[in-house]
């Protein structure tokens, strides 16, 4: 499956922003496997432990450290390395941190996106930019249907607003009328990707369900959750990444259609609750002493249902999710168990095996990128 994605990434110069983060690290592993030449631009990993360090991902890539807000530095990295495609993942990704640091969140998520697109515009080698935003970019009307790409953007809080703005900014660079005047580089293809709540091994970010559960289990503490009935569009990180990689591989084939926004979400049956996710993890991690404790938060009510409709990706990209929720949870538990049982040197291999088994499953399911 090294030739998945039409073998597009073999020998391709790919720049990934935010490559030291959770999602960025998985993308790095996959791109390495596909044979890409990788340039990373990111801050240092911000959790301890972290996937990037555990799997020695700095090996074999051009590993640049810098702030996405530093336009000069970012431009220089682009000019010096001349990548052909950029995956822009660098972001302040935590909803709750955005309440504490709204200005930083806006700056990183909006101006960061502006910087990437502007730096790319002046770098002639760049043919395509895939901007990763979030399913939270949609104006949440509280309805029970999935949000479509044509629905209104907007957010109730800073994180959502920042992602909606990143979408709007990127849309300018998709517009023919603007592209015509942004010489010298009007043929640059730009698409945005809106994935749901990605989960997977190797995430240790704060305020996220799976890392919270894993931290509790690994230290024999109880798992405390506040919104057991909330549903989220959970999906394994590889599902979203397969969408990004596929979009990047074929965007040049039909820019008129592909230069737009894309939802990559799970199918509706995967809309399981926070409580169920925790129970399932605990079930297949039986030797843990942790148990689920529910402490309802009387103050705040979180939006109960929020998911995206991925019909557009199904139709035009022939993209579908591959793993069901059991396979997803199993992969996660295998990854973390391996780590906490003292096998960090093997984590790279475990990660690779998961990418391979995911790809094989996608091929069996006749999903287009895996053919």
């Amino acid at each position, binding site marked *: 499956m090294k030739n998945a994605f039409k073998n597009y990434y073999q020998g391709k110069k790919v720049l990934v922003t935010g490559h030291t983060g959770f999602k960025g690290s998985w993308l790095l592993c996959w791109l390495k496997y596909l044979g890409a030449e990788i340039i990373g631009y990111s801050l240092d990993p911000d959790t301890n432990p972290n996937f990037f360090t555990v799997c020695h991902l700095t090996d074999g890539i051009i590993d640049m450290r810098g702030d996405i807000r530093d*336009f000069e530095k970012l431009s220089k990295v682009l000019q010096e390395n001349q990548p052909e495609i950029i995956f822009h993942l660098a972001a302040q990704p935590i909803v709750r941190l955005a*309440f504490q640091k*709204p*200005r930083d969140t*806006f*700056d990183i998520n*909006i*101006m960061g996106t*502006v*910087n990437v697109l*502007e730096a790319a515009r002046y770098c002639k080698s760049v043919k395509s930019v895939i901007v990763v935003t979030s399913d939270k970019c949609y104006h949440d009307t509280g309805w029970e249907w999935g949000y479509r790409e*044509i*629905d*209104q*953007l*907007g*957010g*109730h*809080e*800073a994180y*959502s*607003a*920042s992602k*909606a*703005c990143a979408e*709007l*900014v990127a*849309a*300018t660079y998709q*517009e023919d*009328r*603007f592209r015509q*005047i*942004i010489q010298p580089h009007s043929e640059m293809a730009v698409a945005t990707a809106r994935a749901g709540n990605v989960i997977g091994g190797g995430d240790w970010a704060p305020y996220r369900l799976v890392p919270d559960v894993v931290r509790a289990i690994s230290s024999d503490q109880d798992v405390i959750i506040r919104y057991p009935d909330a549903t989220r569009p959970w999906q394994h990180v590889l599902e979203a990444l397969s969408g990004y990689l596929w979009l990047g591989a074929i965007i040049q084939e039909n820019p008129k259609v592909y230069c737009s926004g894309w939802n990559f979400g799970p199918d509706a049956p995967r809309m399981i609750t926070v409580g169920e996710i925790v129970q399932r993890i605990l079930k297949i991690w039986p030797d843990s002493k942790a148990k689920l404790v529910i402490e309802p938060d009387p103050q705040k009510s979180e939006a109960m249902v929020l998911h995206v409709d991925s019909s557009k990706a199904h139709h035009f990209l022939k993209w579908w999710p591959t793993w069901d929720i059991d396979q997803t949870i199993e992969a996660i538990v295998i990854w973390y168990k391996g780590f906490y049982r003292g096998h960090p040197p093997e984590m790279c291999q475990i990660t690779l095996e998961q990418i391979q088994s995911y790809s094989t499953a996608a091929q069996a399911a006749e999903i287009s990128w895996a053919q």
Partner: protein
Amino acid sequence: MNSDQNKTKADSNFWYDKNVLITGGAGFIGSWLSRLLCDMGAAVTVLSEKNASESVLFQQYDLSKRTELVEGDIRNWQFVRDLAADGNFDILFHLAAQSQVTVAQEDPRATFEVNIAGTWNLLEAFHQTSPASAFVLASTVSVSGETTDETFDESAPLAGAYPYEVSKACAELIGKSYCRTYNMPVGTLRFSNLYGPGDMNFRRIIPGTVLNVLKNTKPQIRGNGQSVRDYLYIHDAVEALLLLGKYLQSGDVTGQVFQVSSMSCVTTLDLVKIILHLMQQDQLGYEIVHNGSAEISQIKPSSEKIRKQLGWQPRFTLEQGLQETIDWYLKHSNQLVLGEQVK
């Protein structure tokens, strides 16, 4: 006239002694707003970019003496934070923006920074220091994109094609998030094309046409002249600002967006013809400069919402507004030609 007088009197009472901050207060619309607020007895602080050329109006109405003029950059967080903390403002009119479309196309980053980062700096500064103050955000009807055949209202999806429009859409979304998260009284006005006495941006169609006629040269129409636009007289725009500020301060309409338009749209060609006629220079004619674009775009924004909910309505017809505007340019024709030469 009678009801108008009553209304102005009531407004005067409301604005008397109010502590008001106007960003971009020395610009075209800012100068008119500052002047009116000063006349009504408000304490006006004007924030202006360093070395920005003050508008002719700002000088003409002696506003540098009548207002507290502060120079600074809204991209500078510490400056904005200190200004908000020290000012104790009741109301903010956020009008400052990088609004030159050509600049926005050449340097999108600077435009995004001034218009988006400037707005979040102000919102966060007010959130930290005076979260109950009314926050009036000036935006444009173009945040909803360009080629609509039908009249559209505030619910049209955000779809700007160019950096300026998109920067404004972003500023609106960030404003909304502050309103939803912190209950801040933020309200937005989306203006159609503003014109009126004192507009010295001669790249705009109305000032440009008048200047051409004054110089006895044929006005130029770019494109094909068939684009339909809505033109709003500056005094009607200022009245909408005052009205929204007042409503926001009393807690109503928080988080609302209102389009402000005359709802009497014309083609560029007809607009030029009207100006020629009002200046009694029909025989001068005009020149159509094709720019290769066959596209006919229409922007027909509805202002039903602000008319119904806030009782706003334009007081000037297009002809009346243009007549006032032309009279002003005629009166200042020496300055105009001089100003143009200096440029």
